[in-house]
């Protein structure tokens, strides 16, 4: 057996492990797995340099189904483990897979700090708005009123919007896609991979068993066109079956409205143009929801800054370059010493 894998030849299926996939039939996780395998193949990454780190949850079983290195850690801690992997070896390509419970409930703080520190990780948050693995309790992203085993009378909490949270945390790359929208998902994953620093990708993922069709209002074939806004940098924020509807600023009041090009004298010039480096715009886009607005998908925000792992290694390098060959013996003798003669 030779130890080198030739990168060019890897096909999506080469990124599949030998383990039988064990999600519920019809689970959105299958689609995401497929998209990730395809993305890895298309990116031409090396299996041996790729690490998937996950927490606990249905979604977090992900690494077992990939033929890369993988670490299925403990509930909520994947970003912290992944940070350690990346700090130890910045050459590795490190992906985090987490769920809405794993990454935003128990693990919210690690997600926050990995984003803020800007560790060069791709963080994929599979949002099914439910706890799948533990059989259907509501999660921090569940709609208010969700009836679940732990909220038989309906949940009373206001859900957190993952993208808004990520922006509030100071993330430098925030994007969104949908499990079943393979092409869009692959493109989004590629953008995330390309971004140096922490990239946060929320993937709307359908849990057929405990929360089926939560996203159908904007993912169903017949609703998608009118309820999805596929943002692209430099392009006007248009949507709708005939791409005539668009987002426009209400003058002076920092609020957005939906306008229709060609009606009431509205022209394309009145429609906001997506600028993915504009954090305020990203904040606005993140907060949009049906029925009043479409749900914004794609790269909402991308504005690179130095990544934590790169900076920390730069500090180490700077310190190393100052001394010729650092000697531990010399270190131990730094400061006052004395000698007792023999």
């Amino acid at each position: 057996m030779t130890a080198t894998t030739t990168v060019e030849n890897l096909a999506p299926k080469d990124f599949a492990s030998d383990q039988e996939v064990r999600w519920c039939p019809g689970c959105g996780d299958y689609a995401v797995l497929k998209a990730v395998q395809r993305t890895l193949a298309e990116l031409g990454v090396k299996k041996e340099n790729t690490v998937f780190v996950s927490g606990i949850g249905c979604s977090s079983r992900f690494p077992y189904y990939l033929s890369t290195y993988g670490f299925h850690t403990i509930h909520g801690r994947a970003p912290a483990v992944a940070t350690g992997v990346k700090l130890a070896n910045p050459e590795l390509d490190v992906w985090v897979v987490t769920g809405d419970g794993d990454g935003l409930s128990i693990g919210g703080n690690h997600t926050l700090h990995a984003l803020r520190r800007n560790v060069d990780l791709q963080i994929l948050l599979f949002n099914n708005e439910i706890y799948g693995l533990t059989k259907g309790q509501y999660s921090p992203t569940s709609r208010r009123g969700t009836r679940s085993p732990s909220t038989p009378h309906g949940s009373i909490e206001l859900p957190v919007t993952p993208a808004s949270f990520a922006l509030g945390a100071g993330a430098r790359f925030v994007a969104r896609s949908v499990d079943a929208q393979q092409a869009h998902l692959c493109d989004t994953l590629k953008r995330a991979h390309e971004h140096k620093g922490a990239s946060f990708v929320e993937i709307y993922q359908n849990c057929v068993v405990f929360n089926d069709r939560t996203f159908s209002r904007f993912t169903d074939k017949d609703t998608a066109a009118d309820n999805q806004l596929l943002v692209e940098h430099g392009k006007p924020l248009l949507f709708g079956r005939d791409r005539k509807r668009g987002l426009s600023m209400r003058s002076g009041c920092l609020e957005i409205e939906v306008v229709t090009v060609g009606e009431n004298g509205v022209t394309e010039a009145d429609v906001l143009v997506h600028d993915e480096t504009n954090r305020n715009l990203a904040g606005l886009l993140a907060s949009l929801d049906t029925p009043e607005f479409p749900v914004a998908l794609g790269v909402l925000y991308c504005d690179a800054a130095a990544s934590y792992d790169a900076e920390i290694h730069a500090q180490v390098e700077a310190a190393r370059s100052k001394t010729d060959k650092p000697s531990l013996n010399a270190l131990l003798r730094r400061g006052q010493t004395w000698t007792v003669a023999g």
Partner: protein
Amino acid sequence: MAHGKVAGGGDLRGKLPREVRDAVVIRFAGDSGDGMQFTGSQFTQETAMVGNDLATFPDYPAEIRAPAGTTFGVSAFQIHFGVTDISTVGDELDVLVAMNPAALKVNLNDLRIGGTVIVDSGSFTKRNLQKAGFDNNPLEDDSMAPYQVIPLDIGKMTLEAVKDFELSSKEALRSRNMWTLGLTLWMYDRDRQVTINWLRSKFKQRPEIAAANIAALNAGHAFGETAEMPNYAVGYSIVESDIRPGEYRTATGTQTMAWGLLAGAQAAGLKIMFGSYPITPASPLLHALAGLKEFGVITFQAEDEIAAVCSAIGASFAGSLGVTSSSGPGIALKTEALGLAVATELPLVVINSQRAGPSTGMPTKTEQSDLFQAVYGRNGDTPLPVLAAATSTDCFEVAVEAVRIAIKYMTPVMVLTDAYLANAAEPWRIPDIEHLNRYPVRFRSDPEGFQPFLRDTDTLARPWAIPGTPGLEHRIGGIERDSQTGHISYDPENHEQMTRMRAAKIHGIAADTPTQELALGDDSGDLVVVGWGSTFGPIRQAVKRARDEGRAVSHVHLRYLNPLPRNLGDLLGAFTRVLVPEMNNGQLATILRSSFLLPAISLPKISGKPFKVREVAEGIRSALES
């Protein structure tokens, strides 16, 4: 009043011959702002340079900067120095330096009857006395009669000494501690050069400050030289010690721990990735390692202890030496992740600088009460090796050993140290790193026959195969793993086998660690005193005393707490009684009882302070009578 008063002036001239002493205990105490820690460290340096053996004990308030003059704002630094075998900080003080009334109030109890107390009488103002809770000025009533009091107006003399440097009086008074240091250095016939050099380099930008401090230092020294000190305030000489030749320095447990980790990592050919979160008294280790970037050490101040340990686990997975450290509450938070490290069988070193618990407890006070947590404190059957350091400089060797075990056995290792060891300094014969054993890690690289959980038949360790290695791609996790492939397995037999393997692996380490030796005494007798960790000094001295009194008492001091040394049961079995002094409520005693069914007697001390030799000696006495 039984003692003469000495006015703050130069009217006491003449130089007395120096008395010779074996050992002396001195404590510098003052307000947090008075620079007592610095004074103590400098005194230590100068004393170490003379070749004395010594032990130090810094004791500072929990508050960052408590209001000046209050009792809870008192900061103290104790040093015990002498000819040889100074393994404790001393039960009682021979000399107390008290820079204000509060310092006198808090510390006087520890001064031996007849001991000397030097007070800055200028600070005994009405307001300061009140803040310290004195109704009367103790310098003016007979409450100090049992002691030899030397009241000096140190403030006034300091101002006088530095008057040429045109400092504000506030700035000028900052040198009071240097004046005091000068005087005490004179008392013990010590040099001032280290301090002078240090001041010069520290205040390079403000030479006038350096000069003022040096002037104060010299003035204090000169005062000793020239003042006619009362005859109980003689100068002392400590005979030079007959110690092992070599190059020496003083070092705290924090320093030697940091260096030991680095030495261990170098011996293995690994980089350190240290993930931690600040907590008293563990933070200094983070600070020390953060300053070692030129050695490729990466330090990561995580958002909490959970992230800290997880980052270290991730780093180990990726091929670094993952290290994490904390104290009780933070170690508690790492519990779940330690289980993950045990389950995934990754190397990891966890340093626990123990402090008084439970809960937040007394963060600045020392204790050994996390032993149960270290040995037993995880869900599931989750064994891991536990080591403890006996002295500040022992931390070096223990750290190296912890790294060796973690790597060789692919396991997290817990190292127990404590608040006392972390801060206390002692002289250290600096090892030559070139002569340390090396144990280079060989990461698995051959895909042929690779299975991530296929164990080495000897150590029972699984292979360390790191990302970046072609052909070894594999997945690990916290769900029970197949004993070969590492895939998720719910198979009952597999779980049974894996649980037994994990236990056997840790148990087997005892075959690879030294048999337990006696620290002192014969290999059988009426009583063996078993200690672990920082109680080494007081136990040693107490056993020595008992033996001097002709008792058949021996001392065993454990470095390996899990697994216990393979001969320990037999060793202890040769004694009629087993006494276990611990700074907790009997944790090692419980472990020894279950391990060897020995009726170990517990001698607990749970006051947040190290044992006094006297306390252990009394424990020995009553155990012998029991």
